């Protein structure tokens, strides 16, 4: 049986935030690469780093949900 408590709703909200954040990062990266394809490597590196940081924040939420 899954956890049917507020904790799982909280985890879902955290994932929602992560999805929005990483989506924005991805879209900005796409725009940057489209403008200047030579800089694609640097843009991609920066995108991955920003995505990992945003995911870190989302996982704080998941951890709190797991503890509850």
């Amino acid at each position, binding site marked *: 049986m899954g956890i049917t408590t507020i904790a799982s709703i909280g985890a879902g909200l955290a994932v929602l935030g992560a999805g929005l954040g990483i989506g924005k990062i991805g879209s900005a990266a796409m725009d940057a690469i489209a403008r200047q394809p030579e800089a694609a490597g640097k843009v991609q590196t920066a995108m991955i780093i920003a995505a990992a940081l945003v*995911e*870190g924040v989302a996982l704080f939420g*998941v951890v709190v949900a797991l503890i509850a």
Partner: protein
Amino acid sequence: MKKYVWFLLSLCVLLTFAIPVCAQETETQPQDTAKQIEESSEIAQNIAEPTEAAQPEAAKEEKFDVTSLIMGHIKDSHVWHILDYTKEENGQEVEVPVAVPLPVIVFANGHLDFFMSGAFHHGHEAVTKGDNTYILANDKIYLANDKGGLTFQNGEATEAMEFHESLEYLEANAEAEIANEKPLDFSITKNVASMILVSIILLIVFISFAKAYKKNPGRPKGLQAVLEPVFLYVRDDVIYPNLGEKTDKFLPYLMTVFFFILFNNILGLIPFFPGNANVTGNIAVTMVLAIFTFLMINLNGNKDYWHHTFWMPGVPVFVKPILAVVELMGIIVKPVALMIRLFANISAGHIIILSLVSLIFIFQTIAVAPVSVIFVLFMDCLEMLVAFLQAYIFTMLSAVFISLAVAEHKH
């Protein structure tokens, strides 16, 4: 023709990675979980045809317990469990666990006791050394109460039982709270043994690289050709841009952190014996790494760093105390964030892979198997990326924080 052979071989290896994860059993139940065990051991033996091997058995009496499987993998344990197989014993199918017992080192009442965890027989026996009796329950070691068993907490009341009684009670109520005292536990558990293994690997690999580099500074070969570019990339593109001239002072620490986290992440993804230990997904391990970064930052902080923390120049006087509080919180929160980021990313990855494989057992149809295996393959590739990425992020953020602490400001 040769290309096809390589492709098929690598496909088999990848599928082998994905399937045997489910062959891990956590608690040994010498009763009738035989059907579920047969399924998983069949799959573990069948390398090239995993989907066909997931033959659904006839109606199972017991429900497949996903949570205990996953938690058993994520949590630490005193026994390094490898696999289970069934054998016929007195007409009944008994599940025999194959495991590596690890040393137990406990300190209680002034005695330091040392014995192998095999003496616990997976929790079915209590071990007595001198005055102390130890019981293994829920992967933790407790000191037995006066009756020789466990004391359970029911709300306010405690209920002390004898040994076998308490074992039965625990099997019936898995959620029961145990109120016994715990000794100080310095055992070599699965995570400790895995960390020792990774340390030995790190030492062997990098000392041999250093020697080879001195002897032959030309083009490297073999494993050195793979790891040297990674090393140079981290040094030149992550650490040097942040630390500048002070790179050499902090390079040993930062490189150790990077490769330690990387090797542990990768070993955690391997589903069979020397791998499979969830080291970096254990919050105690990541806490220690974050504490090391915290110490490196603050022990090397120069006068400007502390000045800026407590009495930030360039802001109005009434703001400075507020900023001091905020900066102090920041000093604690930044390593805490490092700790939680690494722990949550790695644990979540393991949980997802185990859940996807467990889908086959929950639905008990062959139709789920191809979907599940492909998903697991994809998630495994993603987890490899996460393994590198988390090591890189931890190192990069540590480098940035250290650079902030040792930066020389020209006022």
